[in-house]
């Protein structure tokens, strides 16, 4: 077992993928010599060379578009988008090209591209550095969208994403980058990529989250336990496709569901989860599904982001609401 934070865990996962498969490339702005602005790719260029770890020109459409060509040629590019808000210059390539190539070629062409995006807020940043754009991608057929919440998942999920022949948008919870955890670097992944995980079992209400909000919900569960209430927290891990088997199972036992994400509320992942749970577990529900999310505003200035972001108290408040019915 090795104690790693999420940055180091993804770094170790990338390293292992690159060792195992010479076709794996890392590309993006500042990923080479600097090792990325968050150091996720630290040391990779030194060890794998400039051909495999590419400091690209400053152009996101170019990063994604050339990754498409490289993938067509048999490479497995792992693209880094420096911050969530900067994926949009590459959005056209992702939505129109990356997502659709397999479909429109009748399955002949595969694009095993991973697009890594640090996402989410709470880092006191200026505009465009704290956003949660996952729903835009999860809404796009052809893209797989996953996100990790802890170092162990980070380590395995990045490797699994690289191995997958579908394109994957890989969201990294930058506000939790320095959260530490134990990782067995030589073991095997205990879960397939496209599966959710019960983060902590419970009996009174179900709380669903992903990425940075998992920790918030685990804290909420701990606080609720002190008050004699048992929350089951489920880490979705995969947003497209959604894996809600554990959620349905949980809601059938608890009858209460709260979905939590940083992203804006309207048409967010929470809306989809609520709709599906309503379809599948209607007779088990004791209360309407509650959402705890960012508000439907642009991401606000840093000095007020704490009020924008769901916190432990807002989660508990929503749990209370499910008991008020």
């Amino acid at each position: 077992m090795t104690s790693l934070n999420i940055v180091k865990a993804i770094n170790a996962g990338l390293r292992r993928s690159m060792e195992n498969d010479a076709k794996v490339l890392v590309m993006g702005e500042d990923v080479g010599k600097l090792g990325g602005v968050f150091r996720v790719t630290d040391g990779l260029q030194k060890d794998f060379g400039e051909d495999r770890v590419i400091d690209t020109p400053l152009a996101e459409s170019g990063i994604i578009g050339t990754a498409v060509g490289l993938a067509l040629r048999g490479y497995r590019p792992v693209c880094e988008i420096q911050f969530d808000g900067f994926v949009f210059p590459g959005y056209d390539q992702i939505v129109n090209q990356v997502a659709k190539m397999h479909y429109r070629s009748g399955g002949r062409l595969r694009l095993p591209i991973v697009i890594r995006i640090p996402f989410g807020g709470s880092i006191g940043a200026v505009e465009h550095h704290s956003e949660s754009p996952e729903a835009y991608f999860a809404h796009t057929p052809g893209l797989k969208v996953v996100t990790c919440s802890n170092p162990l998942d980070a380590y395995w999920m990045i490797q699994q994403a690289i191995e997958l022949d579908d394109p994957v948008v890989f969201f990294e919870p930058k506000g939790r980058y320095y959260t530490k955890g134990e990782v067995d670097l030589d073991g095997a992944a205990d879960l397939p990529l496209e599966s959710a995980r019960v983060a902590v079992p419970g009996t009174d209400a179900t709380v669903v989250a992903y990425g940075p909000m998992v920790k918030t919900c685990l804290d909420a569960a701990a606080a609720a336990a002190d008050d004699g209430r048992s929350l089951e927290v489920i880490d979705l891990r995969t947003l497209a496709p959604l894996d809600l088997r554990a959620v349905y199972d949980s809601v059938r036992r608890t009858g209460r569901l709260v979905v939590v994400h940083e992203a804006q509320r309207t048409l967010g992942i929470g809306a989809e989860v609520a709709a599906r749970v309503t379809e599948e577990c209607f007779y088990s529900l004791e209360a309407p599904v509650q959402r705890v999310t960012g508000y439907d505003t642009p991401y606000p200035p840093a000095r007020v982001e704490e009020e924008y972001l769901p916190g432990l108290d807002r989660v508990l408040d929503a749990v209370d609401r499910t008991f008020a019915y």
Partner: protein
Amino acid sequence: MTVETAAGATPPDPELVQLLTPEGQRVPHERYDALIADITDDDVRALYRDLVLGRRVDGEAVALQRQGELGLWASLLGQEAAQVGSARALRDQDHVFPTYREHAVALCRGVDPVKLLALFRGVDQGSWDSVETRFHLYTIVIGAQTLHATGYAMGIQRDGAIGTGDPDRDAAVIAYFGDGATSQGDVNEAFIWASVVNAPVVFFCQNNQWAISEPLERQTRVPLYRRAAGFGFPGVRVDGNDVLACLAVTREALQRARDGEGPTLVEAFTYRMGAHTTTDDPTRYRLNAELEHWKLKDPIERVKAYMVRGDIADQAFFDSVEQEAEELAVHLRAACRALPDPTPASIFDHVYVEPTPDLVAQREAMSAYLDSFAEEVAR
């Protein structure tokens, strides 16, 4: 196999417009002398003051960030001459589209520097009046503002505010961007657009040699100013650490634009003497020797040397500017700390011209929720 890259393939220094040597010697220039023939000693002193105040605001902001008063700061250190020289070439009616680093341009346009601090403190996202100052909001998404500048210039065209010969009416737009930005699609589209419609816009690229950790050769194999030729408009490389040369070259470009002769690309060859931002650690990717080399070309020192050499200013003048900078710094420190945080409910303001029912409901829910804590405390 090693793929050949452009590393180390930077072509030799092409012709650089320079009017002041790093030692502060005024060198004649056939073309550009005429463009600053009207500059008096008073004007030189005023430029010096702009440079010093710009650097001081910047230094103060870096210090405030270190003290936890700002979330971030993008330092302009080393780029004062490029910014002041170009900004002082503007007429009142000209319009500026900056990146996130144009603090000295902002000062020249009369933007209250406290408002720059407010943005980087995380209090707001740009609170200055961009209509009144003709200084648009900062743009963080690399390159986006070059298209906005071009579109604004198209508006000026349609308003008939070019080529009339009236110096108070004819207007131009200047778009600032960096060397890294020249790789963005938006910037290349702006070049194409401006060229095709002959827009009254000056593309002012501060080539500070770095885009965070990536050196210029990661973005280009040709000197940037030469790119303009391919788009069909003039490009010129100017010593970006020479305030007089930047003034002259930008004046010419802006006048071309105001006269209806279309866009120009100005490449101000300069150097980012500080970190990319306060979160960056440049020791990871560049050698100190490079910085030491550029320190010898300091944009403020050379004007000072020129002024001393030519008896344009005495010690009393330099002291008075220093004194003014110090007073400004004291004011900034206090004003920054006094900036009020936004209220939680204010995040709902201005999403749309009129608040939607959804947003009103969300705001009310938030207020009720926050009030419930207040009640708890009261109890």
